[in-house]
């Protein structure tokens, strides 16, 4: 009878081999396997120092200050120039949203004379504008969420929230008129946070910052803004 070698017994211990049939009829291999199993089973008793249930939070507290922060590009000269197309887009949204909502409310199947823009093109502009707006909003939200409590300078976030409010209001009203309940609800939730930020003083106390961070973290607002932004861009690009 051919006996198992040690390597085969080790594989068998970890469930990689077919040992049962042979072990059932070979007392020698059975005894060797039992000795090996006993030793390996005992080796599972390897003491690892205990960690409290708060360990995850402790790890985060030490880790958070070490995480690389996003470059505050909006304070650079580039951002000043970036504002120009944003404002142009806002004007375009105002025009297109108005025409689009008007068209839906009249339930007409024809393109109104003089607009020079098809329904599909308007929808595309709306979706891309929504995506662009949400992307700008998420940068402000992420900056606030990642801000360190105790930092008091808040004027940049406040000013940008103020700039975003106009477009947000317009997009929310359009989404409501078009019956897009999910987008309208998200924009409504976003608007209330932006309003709070826009109405904050230029210096902010730690507890007020934490309150804002809680609101942003509440039910994953930032995450939902990101997902909707990506989704709108993809839908717009397909049109």
């Amino acid at each position, binding site marked *: 009878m051919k006996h198992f070698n040690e390597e085969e017994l080790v594989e068998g211990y970890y469930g990689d081999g077919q040992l049962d049939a042979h072990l059932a009829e070979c007392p020698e291999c059975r005894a060797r396997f039992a000795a090996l199993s006993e030793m390996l089973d005992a080796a599972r008793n390897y003491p690892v120092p205990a960690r409290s249930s708060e360990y995850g939070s402790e790890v985060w507290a030490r*880790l958070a200050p070490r995480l690389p922060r996003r470059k505050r590009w909006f304070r650079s000269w580039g951002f000043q120039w970036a504002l120009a197309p944003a404002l142009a887009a806002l004007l375009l949204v105002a025009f297109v949203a108005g025409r689009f909502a008007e068209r839906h409310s009249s339930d007409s199947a024809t393109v109104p004379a003089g607009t020079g823009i098809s329904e599909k093109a308007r929808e595309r502009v709306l979706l891309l504008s929504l995506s662009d707006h949400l992307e700008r909003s998420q940068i402000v939200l992420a900056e606030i969420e990642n801000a360190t409590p105790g930092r008091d300078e808040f004027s940049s976030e406040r000013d940008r929230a103020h700039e975003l409010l106009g477009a947000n209001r317009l997009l929310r009203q359009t989404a409501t008129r078009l019956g897009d309940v999910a987008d309208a609800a998200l924009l409504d939730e976003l608007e209330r946070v932006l309003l709070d930020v826009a109405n904050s003083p230029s210096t902010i106390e730690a507890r007020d910052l934490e309150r804002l961070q809680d609101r942003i973290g509440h039910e994953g607002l930032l995450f939902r803004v*990101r997902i909707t932004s990506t989704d709108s861009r993809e839908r717009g690009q397909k049109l």
Partner: protein
Amino acid sequence: MEWTDAAAAEAARLGDQHAFRVLVERHSHALFRLAYRMTGNEQDAEDLVQETFLRAFKQLKNFDGRAAFGTWLHRICVNRSLDSLRARKTRKEVSQPVAEDAVNWLDRVATPQPSPERLTQSGEIAGLLEPALQQLSESERTAFVLRHYEGQPIEEIAQTLGVRTNAAKHSVFRAVQKLRRALEPAWGAAK
């Protein structure tokens, strides 16, 4: 809202630190256990947990979701642990003999006064295990820890170590052989 690992990883990849915090709080305990078994040193394990999360955050753009996030994290932790073991080995070769660490570890795990449990076989084995593990090569220790304590399949261990399946299997076997030789005297005496 309870985020899945995949959703939280995607949000974290887009820069959401709150999502990354969820992942840190969820995986810290398991990573610490793995890092401790890899190194046998509490402080090294703590440092490795930090380094693993830091590296994971920086490399989130490379996380493609093909493996589970936990598996991906574990792989980073194992690679960092291997670096740490190699660095420690180099330091040790220059400064102190291996046996000294083994004695220190025994001091730490031993209870102040011998108890009946301390005298049982498994207690004896536990006290001798870390010094025995220190005698293994980095790849043997890694293969053994991943197979024995983490229950990983051989194919995954091979991938982590960057070797063929047979080589990973052989590393586990060599580790068991060496541990057996190291533990046998105490094991036999206790019996």
